[in-house]
């Protein structure tokens, strides 16, 4: 199976390196019926399947342009001559955490009042720990042109894909007893970024960045800090507030990966892409599915 894939890939590559165009004209208007299979940028000779080497200057202006564009596309598609390197980065990270007494805060409005009033009841028998860690992840892509010619009008698109989570309920003390308190809703987010490079000179390299994936990890722990057998709990103070040992919940976002695609317009005015993804399994689905 693996051998078959290699053969298929080789066939595809060899097929892709042959021009689709069959007819070429020279400056006198004569027509050549042949397939372009190579071009030497230094000697400026085009190689044809049957006719062999023909100098570029022989051809009409539109065919000269075609041959040069064909060669540019071939150089772009070569992984040896146009290198694409992908690297994962963590651009920033921070954390905030605090321990405090949980509280019930009611809000109400009095007549004519511009500001809302609040009434606070502290749940002294309990202790609450909150923490949020925030990280920014991204990917860098390095493009290096090792061709003898420049590559023009390069389009770089990237999609960074991550899973975002949120709690189903608010962190109200009264929600703590509900089953949904620990439940989370997940959703997949894809952030697209598009860059355009006018030209990449021979030997030049450029580093571009994907969009950012902001990942959060949030923890809430509520524990009772008194012995319920010796002391009455908060039930009397906060009507409807039951007794519970501890209530915790945690949500954590996850980075799925990145998909870069680098493209140029080929000799037939079609966009040709080179893809790079981490992990590569992302490319099992179509680009538009993310």
């Amino acid at each position, binding site marked *: 199976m693996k051998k078959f894939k290699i053969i298929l890939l080789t066939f595809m590559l060899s097929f892709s390196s042959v021009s689709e165009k069959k007819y070429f004209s020279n400056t006198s208007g004569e027509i050549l019926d042949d397939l372009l299979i190579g071009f030497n940028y230094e000697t400026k000779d085009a190689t044809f399947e049957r006719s062999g080497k023909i100098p570029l200057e022989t051809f009409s202006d539109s065919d000269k342009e075609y041959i040069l564009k064909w060669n540019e596309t071939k150089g772009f598609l070569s992984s040896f001559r146009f290198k694409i390197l992908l690297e994962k980065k963590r651009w920033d990270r921070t954390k905030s955490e605090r321990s405090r007494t949980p509280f019930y805060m*009611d809000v109400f409005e009095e*007549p004519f009042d511009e500001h809302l009033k*609040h009434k606070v009841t*502290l749940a002294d028998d309990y202790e609450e720990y909150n923490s949020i860690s925030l990280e920014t992840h991204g990917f860098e892509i390095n493009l290096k042109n090792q061709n003898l010619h420049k590559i023009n009008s390069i389009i770089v698109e990237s999609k960074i894909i991550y899973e975002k989570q949120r709690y189903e309920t608010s962190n109200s003390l009264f929600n703590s007893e509900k089953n949904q308190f620990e439940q989370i809703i997940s959703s997949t987010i894809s952030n697209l970024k598009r860059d355009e490079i006018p030209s990449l000179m021979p030997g030049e390299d450029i580093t571009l960045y994907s969009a950012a994936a902001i990942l959060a990890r949030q923890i809430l722990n509520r524990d009772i800090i008194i012995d319920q057998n010796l002391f009455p709990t908060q039930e009397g103070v906060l009507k409807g507030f039951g007794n519970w040992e501890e209530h915790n919940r945690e949500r954590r976002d996850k980075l799925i990966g990145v998909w870069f695609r680098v493209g140029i317009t080929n000799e037939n005015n079609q966009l040709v892409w080179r893809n790079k993804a981490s992990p590569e399994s992302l490319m099992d689905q179509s680009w538009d599915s993310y």
Partner: protein
Amino acid sequence: MKKKKNKIIGSTAVIISLVFHFLIISIAGGIIALKFIKKQPSTFQIEEQKSIERRKLDLPVKTESFVNKISKPQIISSKNIASSTPDLLDIPNQGEFVKMAPLPTFQGSYTNFIKKDRRLTFNSKFREIDFGISKMDFFGTKSSAEKVIILMDVSKKIVHDRMGGLEVYKLIYDDFSILINEIRSSTLVNLILFDNEKIVFFEDSFIAATTNNKTNMLNWVNSINTESWNIGLKSDYKTNYSKNDFVVPMKQEDITGWIKALQATLKFKPETYFILTSNWGNTTDPTMSNVSYFSKKSIMNKYLKERNDHIISKYESEYDERKIEFDNLKLIYEKMLDFENNARDLMLYDHKISHNWTDILSENNAEFPYWINVESPISIDIFPADTRYTYDEVLETIYTLIMKEYGHLGFPRINFILAEQRRPKFYNFSETAPLMTSRFKFIQLCRMIDARLRRINLPDPIKNEIDQNFNEIKKNIVSNEEI
């Protein structure tokens, strides 16, 4: 041998030789003599030089004198506010703005530069050259940057009487003018004013801090909050935000105040922000220890309505009774405010700017009826905690909004200036901490994002000009009604 010698002396060859030598010496002597004898200057026949005839250019078009072609100066109208008192501004001389651009440095060592990597780098991750860097100081928060954005709260919360009145705005203006004057002309700057949900940009993009722009900026700030009856912003800047509510925990409609102003300017990616604000969130309770948070507007409105409906249905008679008490109190408030403003008019002082309508009542020891208490939690589907964003949700929103724009550049430098109302301190930490005051929240945020926080030392609250007796005014109103 002797015979041979005589023969040589007597020969003709000797005579010829002597003659030849004599001739050579004579010629040489003559040449030397000619060199040393003064010559008569040679005369040249000077021919009369013919002057070149000046040819006239054969131009196909009619020529006009250059001076005549210079256009006459025209009056150019500017959209910026004209300076009323520009002479009073302390604008530094143009010479102070000029600084040589520093040279770029090598990537790594010099050897590395020669052998491998020929890239040149500049010191800052944000800028390409540091030609426009200015050192700035705003209420003690210091920064150096090439691109700076200043966000300023100009709402009533900044200038009400308990804050110190319009004097606070003057204090802010004075420090702002020092900050602006410190900025060099090559620094890029913009100013955004906000008032709760309204935001206004000085310019739609960065502008160079030239003398002209600085003068206009200062005059613009000076034209706001000039009179006690004309406080805050009247217009709003329309901004288009992406509507993806799930990406950030806060809904776009709930992002107000300093976060809204920050969000609107993130696309400019400044290196440094100065944010002057009076509060953390859009809901601040002046009666408690400045408890401040961002509310979920739609859920809050629903909750308050349902709570009110619950009170009316359960405590109808008590509700009607209290409502009348509050209506009467409103009449007393209006009378008290009228008397106070009349007294201030006589003293040529600004009118009273109240944060809340009850301010003047409590300052004159009025008795307040207690509003109806409801057992918690009341029998409605919404919990009070559902009506507000948690602190963590707001942190995540701020962080996401910023890093979405900055990405690989990392977090910008943010300097917060908090103009917070003076209140009696709560010494009980367990009471202050959970309530999450503006100050506590900003301290936590600054620790998290490595920002800086300074508080403005506010002047003393403005005292009322007259002490009023609540009961006398009440009696006065009742007697007037009877008449």
